[in-house]
């Protein structure tokens, strides 16, 4: 398996690794994937009053491409309005990282993680307790 320079860069110097307070009202959390499939991504966003994402963090269990996809996603999310963030497509990640066909699922997972984090934040905004994204049983 050969990796593109961008994947290697994100793998070696991942951006925004870490966690935000998942209980905070302005934080949305998305956890997608499963260990037996080889990838789990946790992506979190902190959203300002104007709907802009002021911070994004990730933790990923997965191959180098999965780590790179989530690292790239956090880079794109920061400073973006949630409505725009919800438009991010996995194909953009594939293109930016030059992912080979066998690694496309990593980008799909990153897109799903973004959507799950936004949904979690929206639910908190609507006042209903977060569901779905908090997978901890």
């Amino acid at each position, binding site marked *: *398996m050969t990796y593109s320079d961008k994947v290697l860069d994100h793998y070696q110097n991942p951006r925004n690794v870490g966690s935000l307070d998942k209980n905070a009202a302005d934080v949305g959390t998305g956890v997608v994937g499963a260990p037996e499939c080889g*990838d789990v991504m946790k992506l979190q966003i902190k959203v300002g009053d104007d709907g802009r994402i002021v911070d994004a963090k*990730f933790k*990923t*269990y997965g191959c180098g491409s999965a*780590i790179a996809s989530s690292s790239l996603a956090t880079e794109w999310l920061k400073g973006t309005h949630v409505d725009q963030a919800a438009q991010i497509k996995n194909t953009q990640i594939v293109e930016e990282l030059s992912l080979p066909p066998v690694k496309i699922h990593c980008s799909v997972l990153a897109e799903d993680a973004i959507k799950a984090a936004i949904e979690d934040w929206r639910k908190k905004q609507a006042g209903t307790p977060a569901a779905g994204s908090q997978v*901890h049983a």
Partner: protein
Amino acid sequence: MTEPVRTEPAIRETVYMDYSATTPCDPRVVQRMLPYFTQNFGNAASRSHQFGWTAEAAVDQARQEVAALLHAHEKEIIWTSGSTEANNLAIKGVAQMYRQKGNHMITAVTEHKAVLDTMKHLEGEGFQITWLPVDRKGHVDLEQLAAAITDQTILVSLMAANNETGTIHPLATIGALCKQKGVLFHTDATQATGKMELNVDTQHLDLVSLSAHKMYGPKGVGCLYVRRKNPRVRLTAQMDGGGHERGMRSGTLNVTGIIGMGEAARICRTEMATEIPHLAALRDRLQQRLLAGIPDAVVNGDEAARLPHLTNISFPYVEGESLIMGIKEIAVSSGSACTSASLEPSYVLKSLGLNDELAHSSIRFSLGRFTTTAEVDFAADRVIAEVLRLRAMSPLWEMVQDGIDLSQVKWTVH
């Protein structure tokens, strides 16, 4: 002009810890082979001139060396292209020769593909195959083995030591059982040569597969030991032709390869007594450092009955491919048979009861004759640093630290 002959292993920027995949040739092996490419190039089957006699004499000496390693007689060695061919010849050869006697054979699920796929092939031709399961350490249940033998059974094939975990089967006990029941016993000893005692008499072995490239010899040559007495084992040839190798394996002999294998066997036999404890000490040093530096790392296989040069370790909460990517200065094998596209976890580790996640996160370190203490320490430090780095970005590790039981989590499976 010609390149100078290299007598030392090349200086590498990558530390080689994959000796179970293949070994470099010992420089003594290469030296021994060289004249037989040029001056002594004869065909060992040419009976009418000196070129042939010289080649034949060298092949016979190699035959004696390989036989000596097994405590066998030189006439019992059949040269092949490697262990894959030796396993095919042993299993298909017995199946076809003894079909009148019975149509049942026994093997285990952790065998090498060269045994498993050969058995599957025969299953497709109407043979009954018993696939014995293994326990957590990679052992078959000997009572289950005994119970599986029927009056239709013609062969038991169980490897000497496993290529992924290093687990050693109790050959002498299995051999005695087979002998008592009148069933032939084949063992794939590819990984075991030079790493443990092999003795066709005390271990009651009827057929043994060996490969030169796992014992510091060249690739593409190996042999099958075929017992000549008590009982005399007969095989149906799998290759038709000039009737070489007592009619069991036709084809002009790979003289240079065979000479290399002979020298490799001589070195293994004469140096085993010191090499085994040396390898075990290096392996133990590596394993101890890894276990001390990485919480929750687990050793796979049977530490009490294991090849001396190998340790297979799972590093939970990090994913195998990313770990391999992070330690690219160290050549090792991972528990995911990463055949480019499919990320299938190792069937051997899965048969030991490991879940996919643990199988994916496992690494086989196999050391060898040219491994140094400095390399072991470098590898241990690099692996520890990388596992800890990847854990720091692993959501699974974070959950476990928060006291969450991962098996209770409802994942969003795609």
